[in-house]
């Protein structure tokens, strides 16, 4: 039996949870290795060897060592095409390109404003850090515009890249989950009909529920 892949990082981290969701969708056995960020373990010399930017997650599959959550997700899908959800990264080049397009849209347009909001609204208060109201309102406005585009898209297509759930939708789960459940920003999603429908579908997937459980157990 092959060695389980290793994921280094806390399940509460949005990027780590992105990888966990993918591994569970793909039914790929893994070992989660904790990294205590409050104690600065992500900046230790040993950790910097596997992730030189000092960010989580880091990933190992036997001799292969990778970082960047979206790269890890793509690798998992390419390495294990026959396992779990076979269509997660598309089963033909056009489907895959559409998925890549929307993973990029997530990374370039959804992630920046939603990350700021998750930090400001969900993490800063828990870390007893001061919030920045103008940063919050600027990024809420940005995110609204992005979700307007999503709402139109999701009126034409069941999921972002097409008719099937894919890496593109999965990639949105971590930040959206915190916005809805820990930042009191559910209205961003529920105020738009198609986005609300889409959010309901993707967040109730078994794989995501398992990740949320892992996050709850970690607190």
């Amino acid at each position, binding site marked *: 039996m092959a060695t389980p892949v290793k994921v280094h990082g806390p399940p509460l981290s949005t990027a780590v949870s992105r990888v966990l969701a993918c591994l569970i969708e793909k039914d790929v056995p893994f070992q989660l290795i904790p990294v205590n960020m409050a104690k600065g373990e992500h900046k230790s010399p040993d950790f910097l060897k596997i992730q*030189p*930017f000092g960010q989580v997650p880091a990933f190992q599959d036997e*001799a*292969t060592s*990778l*970082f*960047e*959550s*979206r*790269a*890890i997700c*793509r*690798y998992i899908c*390419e*390495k294990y095409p026959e396992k779990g959800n076979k269509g997660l990264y598309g089963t033909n*080049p*056009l489907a*895959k*390109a*559409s998925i*890549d*397009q929307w*993973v*990029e*849209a997530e*990374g*370039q*347009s959804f992630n*920046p404003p939603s990350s700021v909001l998750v930090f400001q609204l969900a993490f800063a208060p828990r870390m007893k850090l001061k919030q920045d109201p103008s940063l919050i309102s600027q990024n809420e406005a940005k995110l609204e515009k*992005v979700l307007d*585009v999503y709402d*139109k*898209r999701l009126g034409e297509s069941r999921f972002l890249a097409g008719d099937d759930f894919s890496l593109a939708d999965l990639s949105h789960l971590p930040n959206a989950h915190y916005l809805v459940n820990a930042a009191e920003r559910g209205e961003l999603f529920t105020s738009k009909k198609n986005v609300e429908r889409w959010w309901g579908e993707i967040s109730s997937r078994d794989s995501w529920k398992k990740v949320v459980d892992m996050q709850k157990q970690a607190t």
Partner: protein
Amino acid sequence: MVVKVYGPAFASPKRVLACLMEKEIEFEVVPVDLLKGEHKDPEFLKLQPLGTVPVTQDGDYVLYESRAIMRYYSEKYKSQGTGLLGETIEERGQVENWLEVEAHNFNPPVMNLTLHVMFSSKLGFPRDENLIKESEEKLGKVLDIYEERLSKTKYLAGDFFSLADLSHLPFTQYLVGPIGKEYMISSRKHVSAWWNDISSRPSWQKVLLLYPPPF
């Protein structure tokens, strides 16, 4: 059928132009003047609802996001031109890893520098000196990590040129040119050697010659 690439004067579309040239794929360009706000025209938004360039049109097939476009064409034309994705799944993993590093660690600070140093006066927003200073510091830290990486491998994903390196071309060209921070590259021995190597590739030189920047 020739691929159309929208917005050739600007930096992100140049990733696609360089990629198509490396892969020996025929293309034509369609100008989009971002300075005149043409990317927010209803006609353009029909093509690209997020209102950014590049977009490619291949017959009826429309694709956007430069890194998605590059991945698609590099895979579709795997057997022609330069290999840009590595040879194995493991090498591809490294390409993806460093392409994401470019997208999330390198691009944000260099984009801030581009907007504020190059475009603020043209687009009519105040130049934020604090942001410029912070962005330069952040970028410096990223380049320090690149320096360490490139002391071990010739290119970012390994000893082979790939999309991960190519993706850096347009904005690094701005950095060493109109942004005026060439010292950030030249002061780092391995980054400097890597930059000299990748920027002197014939495909990149041709892109610069044929598609000059907007100003």
